[in-house]
């Protein structure tokens, strides 16, 4: 089901943990969806000096979190803000389709940590957006993916999802 890179990051996740007195903290997901990711960042001279994470979730969620920390450390804040879902999937050598939406939230959590840091720099509190039910929508019905669309139309209609 998972690529070798995913399994490697799942088995040996990099940069797990919290950063005491982190410069920014970002969280995404909720337990009902099955995935929660919390990212901690340390910033020096506009560069991500350290990134750590804590994740509740499936194998993909843990691997995504782990590789996002690797991708982010050493980057400028602007560069890190450009880490996309697609880039994460490519770095992992692919993720199963059903995990594209739900479990690929690592970069979002990182971006929120950076926004939290930037807001604090300006002396404001960062208000994290509420994660509504769209975070755990059926990804098979996500028509972004045309390959899955015929399946969607039948199954999701039938089951009312």
């Amino acid at each position, binding site marked *: 089901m998972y690529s070798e890179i995913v399994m490697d990051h*799942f088995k040996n996740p990099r940069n797990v943990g919290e950063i005491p007195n982190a410069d920014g903290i970002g969280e995404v997901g909720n337990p009902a969806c099955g995935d929660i990711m919390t990212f901690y960042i340390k910033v020096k001279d506009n560069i991500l000096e350290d990134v750590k994470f804590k994740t*509740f979730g499936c194998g993909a969620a843990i691997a995504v979190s782990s590789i996002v920390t690797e991708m982010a450390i050493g980057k400028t804040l602007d560069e890190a803000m450009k880490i996309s879902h697609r880039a994460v999937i490519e770095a992992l050598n692919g993720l199963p389709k*059903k995990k594209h939406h739900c479990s690929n939230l690592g970069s979002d959590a990182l971006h929120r940590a950076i926004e939290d840091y930037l807001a604090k720099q300006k002396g404001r509190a960062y208000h994290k957006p509420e994660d509504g039910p769209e975070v755990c929508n*059926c990804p098979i019905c996500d028509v972004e993916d045309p390959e899955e669309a015929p399946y969607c139309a039948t199954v999701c209609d*039938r*089951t009312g999802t």
Partner: protein
Amino acid sequence: MRIINLDHVAAVPVLPEVVKEMLPYFTEKYGNPSSIHSLGEEVEEAIGEARERVAALINADPSEIVFTSCGTESNNFALKGTVQANRARGNHIITSSIEHFSIMHAIKTLERQGVEVTRLPVDCYGMVDPDDVEKAITERTVLISVMHGNNEIGTVQPITEIGRIAREHHIPFHTDAVATAGVIPVDVKAMNVDLLSLAANQFYGPKGVGALFVRKGVRIEPLLDGGIQENGLRAGTENVMAIVGMGKAAEIAARDMQSRIDHMLPLRDRLMKEVPAAIEDVAVVGHPTERLPNNVSVLVRYVEGESMLLFLDMEGIKIASGSACISRSLKVSHVMLAMGIDAGAAQGSLLMTLGKDNSDQDVDDVVRVLPPIVQRLRDMSPLYKRSGKVKASC
């Protein structure tokens, strides 16, 4: 590496004696039972014998057994066939909120076609209250369908009592006994059921064959129209090999049932006791006593099921989970939600289903291997030690 299969709900091996009985029907005994000549005749006799064996397993008359392609077909057949046959009489079905997908989705289809549905709640053990069944009955009720044993939480429903109520009101009563037939005693007479679904792959028979018990006199329309196989209730050339296999597996299941239960029960009870003892914040799901002898269902807090399953798989331990990440629809188990279990807590579901070949060594290994896996994932989890204790259900 030693493989420990604790996922018998997903698949069981076919017994060698069953395979041996099936093999001649692929090659030398390849006749079509509908043929008049002797090639067909010997096959028809074999199907008749299988029908007797399956009937004996559930205390039915052989004429009341209709072979199908699987438990799902049996369930669809029971629901859609009964509703169709009773169009003039009524338009209302009573069911529970913890049924298998093959009941749940078939009923959704009927609902879209205008059938009214009452879905009964369950208590925190996943148990239906027979009084609720009685209260839900209307003049338009044409079928009551409540499952016997739940594959996911192990709870066994008060079928005899529900059947008695159905009978008093002259309403056909169906039970999905796929998780129980061949595993625990099932007696269609004592249980007051009119329709009962079963599948061979739950009792060491082949996949791709099931049966529906249809009590004499119960009105039902076929799902498949065609020839007059299965007394006109299920058209299509019989899957002879699989039917023969189901018959043999049923015969062995009837013979070995008590010894299998006596073997699995202590293992089940060890797992239900020792897993929560070895790991803090683990809750047992389902009824403590009215429960399948092969089912252990627990919730491990603060972690998600799939990640536990992946680590267990690396250690050779094969189990299942009701977590959203495991399901194809990415939704948490409707069974656990119906029991009042919080969606977040249900993500930590672990479902262990025993078979006749599991051993004390298997239990020892699970109790040894699981705690460090859980701790490792908890150390990674932002929920651990942050949230208050999540209430499971009871």
